């Protein structure tokens, strides 16, 4: 397929890219050693510089997935309005949640002051789909069509009850800032597959539900204590897609290449003078920067995507900065072997006005998520690409604010929420876990967020217990200190 074979839009740049490689041959012959040698390897092989890294990168066991895409629903989607069908709730309308269900659980300060906890049944209708007969909300008609492709997990749970700690927890394994994010662990543990693009890319598309959405924080894709080259790189939808990517006016690729050739020689002199490995690393970073100057524009240029593909992602696929456009770019990235792509879609914090905001949110993501799975499948990429969809916690069955049959709000709920996974290593067409009739407590197959992360690492060939980093005297793991296991029931 044409669009699968990356070719730069700027032939001059391509020409000089080729020169870069020659340049490396020449410096290597002058005795640069292994560090530079590793930059010689063709694309789609690890380009990591240091020897110990190459050793570490060996997977613990044969991976099912080589890359992953995480569709992160920031703010926490209402599980009982989307995936966790609770028909029995109708008869409880406006009745208080039984104390036996809440069981003394702490509540956020947004509803802890409420005198009542009246139940708000979902106003949306559900129907059964797929071979397993999964119940899917009317808000997700495209999801309904791909039930056989995905595994739905209804038993996720966490401890945090507010966004900042909760989203930091699921993304970095700790509620407190300072730890490495999932993507940076993957980059650290597995290395890069493509030496022209970052191994971890983040997008933060627009949303149409709740206007004042929770903020995002750089730490969600930060590298924490890991070397910062493992941190996620933001791909922007306006201006330079990556900050400061473009050369200044008057400097074309050829002039930049000439400057870099001489810069590299100058830095060789410095390397001789001080012997500091950081100098070699700086040389590598400048070459990576140059490669990104052609590989990023090539990545974001969707002009050669065929109409039937664009149609699949829906009308917003060609509008930069939408979730649909981000999904399309995610596919283009995994096609180029970017290791991990994370899309943070905001606006899911439905404390009120579910009738107005939730359909908009669901509409933003429904068709593009489906299209992404279909697109990957059609290209044979789904087999070795893991896709995860979900937020940081769930929402309460009881209402926050005023309750009517037609409109209501829901507070944060850590004890259960629903996500789905698909692709490399995941059994398609299954439902895992169940909750009580109030969608309040997990009754079957609970999955802690640490177990979710352990499962993600497992699919990528990593034993989560063995992926650790010494930090402040501790061997820190993404999955925390307690013993957890991957969810083997959902693995192929």
């Amino acid at each position, binding site marked *: 397929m044409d669009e699968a074979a990356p070719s730069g839009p700027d032939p001059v740049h391509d020409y000089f890219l080729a020169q870069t490689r020659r340049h490396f041959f020449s410096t290597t012959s002058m005795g640069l050693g292994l560090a530079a040698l590793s930059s010689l390897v063709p694309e789609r092989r690890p380009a990591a510089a240091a020897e110990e890294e190459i050793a570490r990168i060996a997977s613990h066991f044969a991976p099912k997935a080589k890359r992953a895409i995480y569709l992160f629903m920031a703010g926490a989607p209402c599980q009982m309005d989307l995936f966790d069908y609770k028909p029995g709730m109708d008869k409880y309308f406006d009745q208080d949640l039984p104390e036996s269900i809440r069981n003394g659980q702490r509540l956020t*300060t947004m509803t*802890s002051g409420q005198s009542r906890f009246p139940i708000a049944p979902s106003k949306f209708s559900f129907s059964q789909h797929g071979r397993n007969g999964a119940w899917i909300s009317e808000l997700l008609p495209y999801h309904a069509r791909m039930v056989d492709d995905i595994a739905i997990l209804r038993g996720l749970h966490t401890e945090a009850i507010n966004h900042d700690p909760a989203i930091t927890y699921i993304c970095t394994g700790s509620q407190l800032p300072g730890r490495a994010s999932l993507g940076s662990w993957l980059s650290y543990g597995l290395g890069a597959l493509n030496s022209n693009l*970052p191994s971890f890319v983040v997008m*933060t598309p627009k949303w149409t539900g709740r206007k004042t959405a929770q*903020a*995002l924080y*750089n730490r969600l894709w930060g590298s924490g204590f890991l*070397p*910062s*080259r493992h*941190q996620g790189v933001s791909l*922007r939808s*306006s*201006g*330079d897609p*990556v*900050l*400061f*990517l*473009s*050369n*200044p*006016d*008057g*400097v*074309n690729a050829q*002039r*930049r290449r*000439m*400057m870099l050739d*001489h*810069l590299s*020689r*100058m*830095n060789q*002199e*410095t390397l001789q*003078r*001080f*012997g*500091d*490995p*950081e*100098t070699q*690393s*700086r*040389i590598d*970073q*400048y070459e*990576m*920067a140059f490669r*990104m*100057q052609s590989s990023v524009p090539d990545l974001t240029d969707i002009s050669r995507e065929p109409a039937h593909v664009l149609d699949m992602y829906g009308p917003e696929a060609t509008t930069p900065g939408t979730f649909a456009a981000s999904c399309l770019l995610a596919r283009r990235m995994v096609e180029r072997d970017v290791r991990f792509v994370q899309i943070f879609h905001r606006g899911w914090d439905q404390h009120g006005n579910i009738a107005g905001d939730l359909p908009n949110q669901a509409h933003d993501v429904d068709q593009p998520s489906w299209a992404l799975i279909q697109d990957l499948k059609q290209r044979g990429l789904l087999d070795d690409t893991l896709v995860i969809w979900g937020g940081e916690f769930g929402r309460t069955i009881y209402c926050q604010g005023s309750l009517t049959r037609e409109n209501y709000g829901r507070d944060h709920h850590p004890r259960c929420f629903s996500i789905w996974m698909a692709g490399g290593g995941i059994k398609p067409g299954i439902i895992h876990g169940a909750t009580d009739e109030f969608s309040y407590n997990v009754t079957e197959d609970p999955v802690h967020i640490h177990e979710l992360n352990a499962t993600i690492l497992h699919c990528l060939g990593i034993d989560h217990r063995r992926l650790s980093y010494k930090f*402040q*005297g*501790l061997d820190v793991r993404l999955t*925390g*200190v*307690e*013993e957890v296991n991957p969810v083997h029931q959902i693995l192929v």
Partner: protein
Amino acid sequence: MFTPLRSGTFMVLPALCFVAMAVTATGRASEGDSLQPIDFATEIRPILSDNCFACHGPDSSKRKAGLRMDERDSALARNEKSGVSAIVPGDTVQSELIVRITTTDSDDLMPPPESGKSLTKEQVALLTRWVEQGAQWDQHWSFKPITRPALPQTVEGDPDGTAANPIDLFVSRKLQTHGSSLNPSPRADRHDLMRRLTFDLTGLPPTLEEVEAFLSDNSPGAYEKVVDRLLRSEHYGEHMARFWLDAVRYGDTHGLHLDNYREIWPYRDWVIDAFNQNLPYDGFITSQLAGDLLPQPTTGQLVATGFNRCHVTTAEGGSIEEEVHVRNVVERVVATGTVFMGLTMDCTRCHDHKFDPLTMEDFYSMFAYFNNIDGNPMDGNIKDHKPVISVPTDYQQSRLSSLDQAIAAAESRLAEPWDRIDGLQTVWENSWKNDDNRLLLSEWYHLGPFADSRENQVRQKHGPEGGSTIDLTASWELEEGRSASWKSRPEWTDGEVHNGLPGDMASNFLYRMITVSNPSSPMPVSLGSDDGVKVYLNGEMILSRDVSRGAAAGQENIELPLKDGVNHLLIKIMNFGGDSGFYFSTAASTQVIPVEIQQLLAVGAGSRSGPDIKTVRDFYRSRIGTDPELVSLRTKLGELREERENVRRSVPTTLVWKERVEPRPAYILRRGEYDQKGREVGRRTPAALPPMKEDFPNDRLGFAMWLTMDEHPLTARVAVNRIWQQFFGTGIVKTSEDFGSQGEPPSHPDLLDWLAADFRDSGWDVKHLVKMIVMSGTYCQSSRVLPRHRQVDPGNRLLARGPRYRLDAEMLRDQALALSGLLVPTVGGPPVKPPQPDGLWFAVGYSGSNTVRFVADKEPGKTHRRSLYTFHKRTSPPPQMSTFDGPSREACVMRRERTNTPMQALLLMNDQQYVETAAGLARLALSGNRGSGESPARWMFRRCFLRDPSAAEMEILLSAYHSQLADFQSDIPAARQLVSVGIFAEADDGPDSPFHSAVLPELAAWTMVANLILNSDEILSKN
């Protein structure tokens, strides 16, 4: 029972411990040597802390089997149920600890397998030998009193002990005894040293002249002379302040929700000044924690209390005041713990500390010192969130008082009896009353701002829009609990542009009444607006314009179809960003007479009361009278008032602390939640630390005195470690933010204690400490990395070589500005906005925020200032800072990461300002400034690298130049584009200029060479 041992143990241990520590500092050459005494503080306690304290530690609620492994008494006590003791000193068989860590029975094994913890073989061996040796106990190292260790007497390679600097004695001893075969490196090349020193003391590179003067000074005191000169530089304070601002999380916005502008930069300037004046560190602490409680505090001491106002704040709708209050106080307690004591106080907010001897009661007792501010916890989204003070400069102060005098004089002249003018007033009053066709305009009334998007401002109705009448007493609810109501604005005279309507993306309303009798024709009006405008007359819209522009006369010329009697004119000024204003004039010459004056005029002079007589007279004299003397006086008064207003407006305010009269009670908050009040607690310092002296006041002032009393074990250690870190890149305690059990023990414990004792005993003299560090041989070593360095000590913790690492974000940018000659080195003042890529603020900002849109400053006096002054929006920090590990300033950061990424390469190569500095450097190289006739390449190299280039380096630069030149010669437009960057876009390069168009390719080629130099590793690093 072993309890009687306790007191004796504590008395004996400090001496024992020193021996042990000294040995530890020597490293452990032969790990298996069972005679080697084991150091509890650095070898055993970390193991116990990491593996045992979670269940057998300070946290009483989580404690299992009643056993504490953080206290000797408990560990040695016999368990009543089992009859065994965790530790029996000298007896590993009877010690349950050893039994349980060596058992193969997984039910008994400690730590339990399900904890995920396990001990290594080495750790088990270490614990066993420790018990064998008698299980010597000790406090956590950082809680022990600071005693000044004896200096090591001799040093290898310096048998006579002539290496006078104590730092070198400690560092050499550690190197000698470490057994790593590393030796100190030779002294660095003098130009490298000069650059390292100048950067470390001022954050700026030295000039070539300074380096050459140093190189040619062969006197023994040459280096020290330079140190002393740099310590006197005002840039020293800027550089030292920069690290402090990370620690206290200084920012120019509130940090949460709207993230609006906050004015607190005078605090930043106070910090700079404090370092420059070498304010002793105890005074530095006291002013910041309690300047307001000092007797007759100076303005500076009040400004310093901004320390406790630097935390993020909110005014988010729906926030609960009490909750925000608690969050603010928690911020202060945690910051005070981290910044001054290296304690992770935050852990004790919800439970007793798991690793350190800190309790929840300690936390909330400290809370009680910081909960008594006289102000609303919610910031109101305003820049001057109370309590604040005005901080006029000396000039502003004296100008204000002379203006006050001049205004008072003019006002009294205007109010004096003045018969001639009174006669003219009577004539005017009579003519006004007898005019049947008079057109009466009321003064303007103003309402707003109504913040909204451009689209909504144009499409939707706000405030009074759509009504047929105007109610001047009505008010409107705005967001964030604010409201808007009509305000009379008599100073808005017609025929002038009035800028300064409030709000950024917001609409404002103007209203006035126009009274006419039987108008014969519509009234022509000239209007101007910034930006869009809608005009309603008597409820009918007669104009709507959606444009972006600045206000000026005649932008809209319309006719008002007035009806007989009172007409209502309502104007909506819609602003789409930046300033907002309007212009209004009528073609007819009319007098604007406020409604209440009209009523008084109608009454007639004879029947007015005394105050009314004065009202009408004041009005006549200040608005109407045309007598030349009166007009001149009036004009002068107007000018004086305007100037006073301008001066007042320019006087900065700053957030400070002011104590409430009635202390607020403090409670233990269960789970740290604001509404879960437990027992009330009073003010008390943490119990595990030495108590406050009896005669100290039990308030913030006493707290500050407690922090800085000689017995305090943490304050001096934390301070010297942080300053050490500024020079070596890593602290003696690597975890400079955590001196607790989970922090890393010091690499050179005796050196740390010596420096801390010396710092304290010197009277907390910061410059003394800094000078001792930079005068040390350790600091002056070459930073060349040899293969054995890389193998044995890649992180340079043994200090066998000098520091070498990438410069911090601010130093990188400041260096580029300095080398290009563009740096504006002014010290202090309001934050500035150098350019950044579009859209960064907008991507995260709320539409109603006054920092939602970034507008770069234009004047070089602002854009080319040191990076310390760059406006710091906390939800979107400047990328020039964050790309190079500059923190977001949302939380205290005691040390930055130091990374090396392609994003950094892209920024340094392509950011407009870095390209501008390259162009500036190239211009300097080509202009007459360089004198001496040396080639531009050589001149540029020497200016930046501060040394002579090697032949190879010259060849690289010339080759770079020639290849670029050839390319630009065939593409003159590209050359022009490149060199016209930033301020050079408007450079006036006529035929006489050295940069006339014929040299464009040369200039562009040199610009690329300069870009190369400014991206080279040696320039980006401290060498």
